[in-house]
């Protein structure tokens, strides 16, 4: 009996105290600790893929950044039955605590952090057993080129959103080029940001070579050139804008000149001619992120009548003529759920059929298109050579408008030409998120009158001058509460 007791006591104590240290070292099963990441080139490529992933975020090109910039201006209007999405944006009352300004900010700076983390660590990767050192080195170089180009895009999108498009303005955006734990980070000047964007693009250009040259979903030399043409145009370096555009136009790109071609471009997201870069969307897991088309049609996969939140304004509808090939692809008349007479809705994002069984009204966002590059060059050339500008405008209209009489363009005086280039840009790029920035850099205001009873009363805000402080989004309250060094834009509560 005594022996029994002793055995029980010993066993009980021994059972508990075994293997304790090892058990306390629990590593998360579904995430990698950072020291294990940059140990091979495959993982480094995964991190690079992670730097692309923010592009499809709903706070960025996956949704907000495509539609909001047309909602806050004169291209899109809210219907009187709209579901209160973008409430502050459609009324132009957004402020520092409006969610979308914080979400855009956090998504973009997180994206830059991803790039910075990648660039800081990628050089630590060495070949592992069975890998060729030269191949690994080449991969590293092409990966870095892509990372620089993406950082340029992220920084440029932040800068044009939160700051004036003016190289002499003091209030750029805060910027870090390495992973940091610093919390007080002041804004830099627009010029400092701009220089960094240009430097990143140049760096990317020098490293990219022929990497991904036939890809439309990864950074290649055309991506870099197209973005350069936009950045230079924004900051009025017209020669460089035009030169960069030429690098794209030297490739095999061009206009879709048939209705079928345009349908393929906008419905199927397929065009070797028009698309320079679109976001890579794999149907099953990713297409749900890019279903912004539901704002424009919203018919539950065709089972209900459309119930759109946002429809084209009269002023944008009036830009499209019957002979314009784009009209049928950009706009369509529908009988809607909540209004007695048919309305013209946005048809640009009708949903890619190959995503349909996973996500209704999903289309891959097309960030860089041939037409935009041509328009960039056209506008730049207006300041360099009016003749070249006219040639480009005629080419675009001939491609898009059946039987277009190019003599009309030849007859334009300078003021008309500039105006027509701008109108053409608004028409071609409508609902793609350009309107807000174009008005901003042109120094133009806009007008949003009440189009009809189908338009939400509060959406009809009337005339908005170019001097409206809301052309610069508010620095989010959430950032400024920690980062007290970040100055608020003028106009917003400080």
């Amino acid at each position, binding site marked *: 009996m005594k022996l029994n007791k002793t055995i029980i*006591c010993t066993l009980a104590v021994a059972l508990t105290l075994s293997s304790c240290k090892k058990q306390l070292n629990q590593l998360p099963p*579904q995430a990698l600790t950072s020291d294990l990441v940059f140990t091979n080139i495959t993982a480094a490529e995964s*991190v690079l893929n992670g730097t692309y992933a923010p592009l499809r975020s709903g706070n960025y090109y996956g949704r907000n950044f495509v539609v909001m910039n047309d909602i806050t201006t004169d291209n899109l209007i809210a219907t009187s*039955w709209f579901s209160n999405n973008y409430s502050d944006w459609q009324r132009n009352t957004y402020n520092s*605590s409006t*969610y979308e300004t914080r979400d855009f900010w956090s998504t973009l700076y*997180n994206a830059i952090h991803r790039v910075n983390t990648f660039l800081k660590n990628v050089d630590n990767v060495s070949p592992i057993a069975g890998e060729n050192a030269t191949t690994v080195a080449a991969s590293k170089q092409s990966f870095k080129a892509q990372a620089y180009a993406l950082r340029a895009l992220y920084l440029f999108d932040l800068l044009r959103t939160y700051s004036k498009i003016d190289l002499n303005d003091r209030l750029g955006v*805060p910027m870090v080029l390495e*992973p940091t734990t610093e*919390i007080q980070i002041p804004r830099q000047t627009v010029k400092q940001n701009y220089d960094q964007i240009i430097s990143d693009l140049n760096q990317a250009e020098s490293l990219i070579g022929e990497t991904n040259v036939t890809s439309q979903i990864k950074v290649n030399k055309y991506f870099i050139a197209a973005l350069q043409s936009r950045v230079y145009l924004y900051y009025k370096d017209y020669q460089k804008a035009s030169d960069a555009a030429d690098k794209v136009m030297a490739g095999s790109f061009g206009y879709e000149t048939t209705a079928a071609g345009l349908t393929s471009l906008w419905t199927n997201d397929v065009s070797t001619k028009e698309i320079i870069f679109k976001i890579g969307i794999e149907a099953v897991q990713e297409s749900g992120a890019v279903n912004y088309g539901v704002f424009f049609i919203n018919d539950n996969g065709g089972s209900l009548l459309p119930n759109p939140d946002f429809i084209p304004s009269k002023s944008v509808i009036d830009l499209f003529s019957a002979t314009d090939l784009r009209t049928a692809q950009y706009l369509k008349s529908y009988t809607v759920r909540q209004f007695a007479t048919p309305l013209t809705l946005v048809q640009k994002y009708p949903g890619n059929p190959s995503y349909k069984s996973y996500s209704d009204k999903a289309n891959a966002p097309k960030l860089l298109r041939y037409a935009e590059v041509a328009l960039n060059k056209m506008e730049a050339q207006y300041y360099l050579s009016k003749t070249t500008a006219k040639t480009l405008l005629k080419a675009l209209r001939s491609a898009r408008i059946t039987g277009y009489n190019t003599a009309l363009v030849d007859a334009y005086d300078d003021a008309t030409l500039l105006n027509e280039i701008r109108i053409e840009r608004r028409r071609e790029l409508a609902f793609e998120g350009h309107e807000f920035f174009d008005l901003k850099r042109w120094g133009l205001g806009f007008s949003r009158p009440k189009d009809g009873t189908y338009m939400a009363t509060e959406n009809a805000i009337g005339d908005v001058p170019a001097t409206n402080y809301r052309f610069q989004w508010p620095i989010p309250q959430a950032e400024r509460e920690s980062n007290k060094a970040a100055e608020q834009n003028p106009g917003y509560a400080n």
Partner: protein
Amino acid sequence: MKKLLQSLFMFLFVAVSAMAQNRTISGTVTSSEDRQPLPGVSVKIKGSNAGVSTDSKGTFKITVPSGQNVLVFTFIGYNTATRQITGSNDINVSMSPDATLLNEVVISNNYITKRKGAETGSVSLVDGDKVASRPSGNMLHNLQGQVPGVVVAAGSGRPGAAPQIFIRGQGSINSSLAPLYVVDGQPVDASDFAQLNPEDMDSFNVLKDASATAIYGSRGANGVILVTTKRGIKSGTDINYQAYYGYEQINNQKFKMMNTQQRLDYEVAIGRRAANDPAIPELLKSDFNQVDEVFQKPQTQSHSLSIRTGNEKTQAFFSGEYAQQNGIYFDSKWERYGARVTVDHKAKSWLKMGISLYAGNTNERQPNETRNSTANTGMMAYLLLPYENIRDAEGNFKQRLQYGGYAGAYNNLWVRANDYQHTDYQNLKLLGNTYLEADVTKDIKLRSSYGANYTSYYGGGYNAPLIAAADNGNANRYYSSWMDGIQRNTLNYNHTFGDHSIAAVIGSEYNFHNDIVFSATAKNTSSPLLLEFGSFQTPSATSGSLNKYRMFSALANVNYGYKDKYYVDLSIRRDGSSKFGRNNRWGTFWSTGLGWNIKKEAFLEDVSWLSLAKIRGSIGTTGNDGIGYYPSYDLFGSTTYNGAAGLTPTQAGNPDLSWEIKRKFNVGFDAAFFKNRLTFTADFYNDVTYNMVLNVPVSYLTGYSSIYQNMGRMYNRGIELGLGAQIVKSKDFTLNFNTNFTYNKNRVTELYGFRDELLGTGTGVYTAVGYMYGQLKYNRFSHIDGQTGNEVYLDKNGNQTTNFDGGDAVVLDGKGFYAPYNGAASVDFSYKGFGLFMQWNYVVGKYTINNTRAWMEWNNASWSNYNRVADLYERMWKKPGDNDAKYGKYGTGTNFDDRYIENASYLRLRDLTVYYNFNKSLLSKTKFLNKARVYARANNLVTITKYSGYDPEYFNNLELGIYPVSQKFTFGVDVTF
């Protein structure tokens, strides 16, 4: 030889006398308190060891040799009674409870059992009976108002939903606020109580201060709720059957929405409808209060049968239960089956063992509870237009709705009623524990126990092709399972010598947790009639996770008493947890408690009106590890780009991350008067949380919104008072009164260092040094401009502005969503078996954002698709000069400002029960009934509040479309055989 003769003589004598003069005495032992029979009372003949125990009916029969004429009755917790044997062979004894022991909790806290009166901590006991038989899917709701310092708040009225429980305020900012729940030694979650049978519960001990909780170490910071289940008895057999049946309905709700006439006037005024619209006369024929149309009055019922049996060697308890509670939301269904077996067995004179096993299963059909969805039944009830008839001529739900924001959409109720959409979950819970207890010596006991808590939770839902046309139907399936285990070894020492008593324990413990989640969605069914997950042909998404947690502990506790007057209690525990940074995995927690039983002092011993006076005090530390499983690592998580695998930084690491510590201080005073007719307890506490694990908000340029660090400090200070009185106590008539009150003051005293405030974006919840946790900070509304109809706000400097900007929000002094004052009072009155019981709760100083009301009042294009509050048209700005408009012009915004902050203080009649206890003499005629009780009960019958929303009890900062707590009406029986 002489001895032998003597023995022989004695044997003969005894035998003869036994034959000649033995008497058999029989009788019944009852409690003087409630006149209920007392089973298990030891009945002995004075001066001898011979004795018997009373059976389950309290009766005994004992053979008394002649010459012996005194019987001694002893029973734990009662004063020893002695009876002279006189002429009669019947002796009935009424035993009175031991005054000095009442109101002092004996606590066996899984580690140590202390002598009565030895406890130096703050512990409140709730009898299991007070929690059972009330119709709550999750029994924790029934702890509301039972003891001071414990606040129970409903997060949802969905059957089975767990409440939030806060013990002594809110002691953390980012870590869990929930107490540690322990059932028979096994830690469980609040949600697990929905899986358990409330009738199985014997007692709930609420452990609050350091002396009581430090032994729970890193998990004791928010207090501990220690639940003990019923076990077998040492003689006889009790069979108990309890049942209730009743129904529920929505609480009195306060929003008045527009009727058809008001609605049509509004529509004409805002230009949605022409004044001469020919449809108007037809629409006026329909005028529905949609709340009555949409909510249902479901039935609820419960049946529970238990058997307690055993003998000196083996005791057993069996129970089985079925409970059903359907919700007031359409298609909200819930039911539970549960069974328990508990066996204790004394295998050897020195070895005891036992096992308790419980299996419970709940089936649930979940309604759409999405807070900000118009498909949420509760929201729909308000937002449907008053002229919308949701039923057809036969009274069935119409397929599609016709008007407003719902025009052309499927009627959610039709969809549910016809099985086009479901979400069903099944939750299987296995809870078991087993122990082995060996008496090594008379004073030393070794105990080894093992417990396991296993859950398998699976379910899913589908949308038929009809309503998910784009997908051709879709479905999801979800499976998760988790296992918590605990292994505990303790060595106890109990010794009393002279004036000294010692209870001590040393022990070790190992806790582990593993959980897995797997879910998948698929689309495209082979046929609209096939809606089982496997029939959907196109998989669309999968996800899964695995988490592990381990904790090792060593612990010790010693309680020393001198003359039952002075007590010292010391405890220490060292925990090592996988949750913390590699540099700081181990933490040590301790407590010191002192107790002084003043009543035992000579100068009070003869004061007869004072039954008890005791002072307690304690100080010590506990930890909070409710922070997720892997917060200390620098992590990269998975993502994809174009379907290719991606990695992305997801968490900034902190290898130094360490324990959040709560230092608790408590002084308490317990007193009882007039033979315990009046009891009183008071506690003052001051708990300081420091080294908090904070999600420190950083610049987004770091790539993160926040990083875990140990920072900050806050305190909760308060007083708790409890009072109990037996006002009248006579043969036929009793009147008892109980009340408790809690005041808690919370202040954040340090935060992040580089900034001393945090405003949750869009939430209005402001955490700042110098303010309470849960402080509200909002933009201030001023008035409606009489000329323009615009909303005018005050900016942060108090100047009027029409420009709403989050930067103008100001702290609203004294307004927070955690109430500082909580209390309850109950009255139990009975006369000849008939009785009335009432329990009231109150909460004072609580503020909630009534977001639901904002949804009802917003006055613009988007929101005018839905019905609006009744006075919107009448009181909105219509033309210049409307200077006292309550609402802005049509087309105003949807901003949040202090208009929607409401005082959510309330007084609620939590329970009103009318009962009848059948009297003994009546029952004894049946031969088999021991106890019988019938009752009718109403829960939440009356709520007095200024709050205009669904339910002031809802605990969060912001109330939007919550599933409201219902009123319940039940009729029940409780019989023992």
